[in-house]
């Protein structure tokens, strides 16, 4: 049985919330790596139980060969993006994003097996390499995918409570790889939720409102600057996901409904509303938000990365079992805690600047 930690009366710490967001994202990615592309029934058949901790990815998944706790493209590209922004003193521009992506793509362990088609094409462009034509077929409408949203959570971490700057920088990051308004809408929903969750007065309701604000603003601004592609609306699907999450039923029943009605696939208008649905369906329970996303089936690692980033930022490190951080740092050779410390220096300045 999963262990839900009792809420501790701990003093608010911005660095703790930032670290928890990174831990939640990484844990969601690593747990989802073992369940990706299966249905809920197939996950239970494969493992004998729902997946509630780090497992070895089975041989027929993208994550095959990974050890328990090892992440995929989702968290690793977020990590490189955050690191690059730290090295640019918190400035988010095309150069910082492109160099992060190119740097990330050199790490075969994260990139070669995992990177999606839209991101791969964008990195070729960043490197100045020719992008092969697609038999004359316009693929714009098939690029409204979740690749930008999966790595967007650090943008919220750099701007605690400042949704305007969060949206501005999220658009810059998203446009490098996903030039279409649904991708911008989805990315802004996630980053705004993370940004709001970091504030001392944050509660679940405010976080979900921030997500909806980000999705709406992202859609509006995206229509002005990015490609207009046919797509379901992230905002409308988000409303439906939250209706399911806040309606009657157990978290498990809501997981099934989110998978059946919203969908848990690669499309931005499935993955992002679904991820926020799991945060809303598991109030006060960061591990529950991740576990729901890990067991819903399909693109579980990406959805759990996003759920974990938001729930971690809202509930802090005390919400996670103590073995998460050391397991994740060891399995991936990444120093998640020192990245959190570096981000929090910049975030703290941003936060104090806002209060003046």
């Amino acid at each position, binding site marked *: 049985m999963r262990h839900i930690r009792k809420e501790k009366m701990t003093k608010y710490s911005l660095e703790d919330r930032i670290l928890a967001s990174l831990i939640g994202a990484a844990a969601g990615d690593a747990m989802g790596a073992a369940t*990706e*592309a*299966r*249905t*809920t*029934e*197939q996950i239970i058949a494969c493992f004998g139980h729902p997946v509630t901790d780090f497992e070895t990815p089975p041989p*027929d*998944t*993208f994550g095959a060969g990974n050890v328990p706790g090892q992440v995929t493209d989702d968290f690793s590209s977020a990590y490189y993006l955050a690191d690059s922004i730290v090295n640019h003193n918190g400035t988010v521009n095309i150069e910082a994003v492109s160099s992060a992506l190119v740097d990330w793509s050199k790490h075969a362990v994260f990139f070669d*097996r995992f990177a999606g088609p839209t991101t791969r094409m964008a990195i070729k462009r960043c490197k100045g390499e020719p992008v092969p034509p697609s038999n004359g*077929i*316009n693929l714009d*409408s*098939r690029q409204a995918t979740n690749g930008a949203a999966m790595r967007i959570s650090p943008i919220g971490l750099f701007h605690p409570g400042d949704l305007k700057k969060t949206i501005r920088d999220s658009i810059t990051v998203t446009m490098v790889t996903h030039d279409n308004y649904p991708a911008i809408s989805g990315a802004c929903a996630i980053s705004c939720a993370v940004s709001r969750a970091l504030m001392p007065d944050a509660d679940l309701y405010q976080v979900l409102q921030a997500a909806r604000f980000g999705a709406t603003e992202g859609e509006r601004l995206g229509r002005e600057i990015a490609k*207009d*592609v*046919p*797509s*379901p*609306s992230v*905002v*409308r*699907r988000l409303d*439906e996901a939250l209706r399911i999450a806040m309606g009657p039923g157990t978290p498990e029943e809501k997981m099934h*409904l989110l*998978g*059946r*009605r*919203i*969908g*848990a*696939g*690669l*499309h931005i*208008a*499935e993955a992002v509303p679904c991820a926020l649905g799991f945060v809303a369906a598991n109030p006060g329970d960061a591990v529950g938000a991740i576990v729901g996303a890990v067991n819903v*089936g*399909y693109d579980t690692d990406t959805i759990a990365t996003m759920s974990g980033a938001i729930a971690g930022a809202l509930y802090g490190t005390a919400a996670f079992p103590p073995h998460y951080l050391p397991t994740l740092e060891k399995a991936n050779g990444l120093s998640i805690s020192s990245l959190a410390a570096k981000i929090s220096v910049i975030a703290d300045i941003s936060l104090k600047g806002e209060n003046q």
Partner: protein
Amino acid sequence: MTATEILYDKYLGCILGAAAGDALGAATEGKSTRKIYAAFGERVVDFKNPPDDCLACGRKKGQVTDAFSIPYVLSQHLLASGGHVSRHLAQEALMEWGKSEWFLPFAGMTTRKVVKRLNQDSSQELWSYSGHLGNKLFKGHYYALSSNGAAVKAYPAALLHPGDPDAAVHDTVELTMASHDDPLSISGAGAVAAAVAAAFKEEASVFSITQAALRGAVLSEKLARDQEDIWIYPGPSVVDRLEMAIETALNHPAEEAMEAISALIGNGPAIAETVPAAFGLLVAGEGDALSSLFDAVNIGDETAAIASLTGALVGTLKGAGIFPPHYLPVIDQANGFNLSEQAKAFMELNK
């Protein structure tokens, strides 16, 4: 009209509606509603030459795409066999279609791969069929992305069983397994076949055929899961999305329903978008057949498939007389079809 004439009008209405919907949607395919209005200056309500930036570019107005040509060839095979339904027959039909003018420009991701595999194309090695990892994960993604091919070719089974949705569903499962061997694709195909079969009943209405669709989706998904060689992958439920589409249509005034369905249900190539969107538009039209059909043409993205489904549904329900009189000659002439003859042949077969 005599009872025989009414019945013939329904057969022809189904086939002509499927063909006309495809040809109308060929010009708007792949665009958002905003871009469709920008490209044509108005809502598209008649056959147009497809613009240069779409899949059907270079073809002329009235010409169909894969959405109608696949079931057209399948129908010819079903008629030639005297209505004998088998997976093998559906594969034969698909292989013949693979040699046609429609294959190269239009074949979707799933169908293209199945046809190549059936033809044992030497360039089609295992890895490119099931993904570069050699695992089945990619197959699931391909299916999820392009599975509406199962639904657009579902109406011919209903033409073998007018008025008998359950029998139409059973035959559809067998025919669909030839190319889309998964419960979600089959569920969408079953919804369409059941609704078209139900639309032949004397007392048929938008309500009764929508009920038949829900029942057909549930029954065909169950029959699919009982098949030994079924391929199961994750994806949203066609049944749930059908319920959502109907609810959305009922909760919005007719002029807002198209946008509401597009925003919540979606109108892309996934089976759980294309099929529920078509039924949502059917309900939104409140029995105004052409309003539903034109909504399908202008909703954007997979308009050829959605309008082909909507056309078959309203055409069967209301009869071919509901369509403007130039539809039949334009379609027959642009494509070298004789749709009246095919409609008569189905009717003769069932006598």
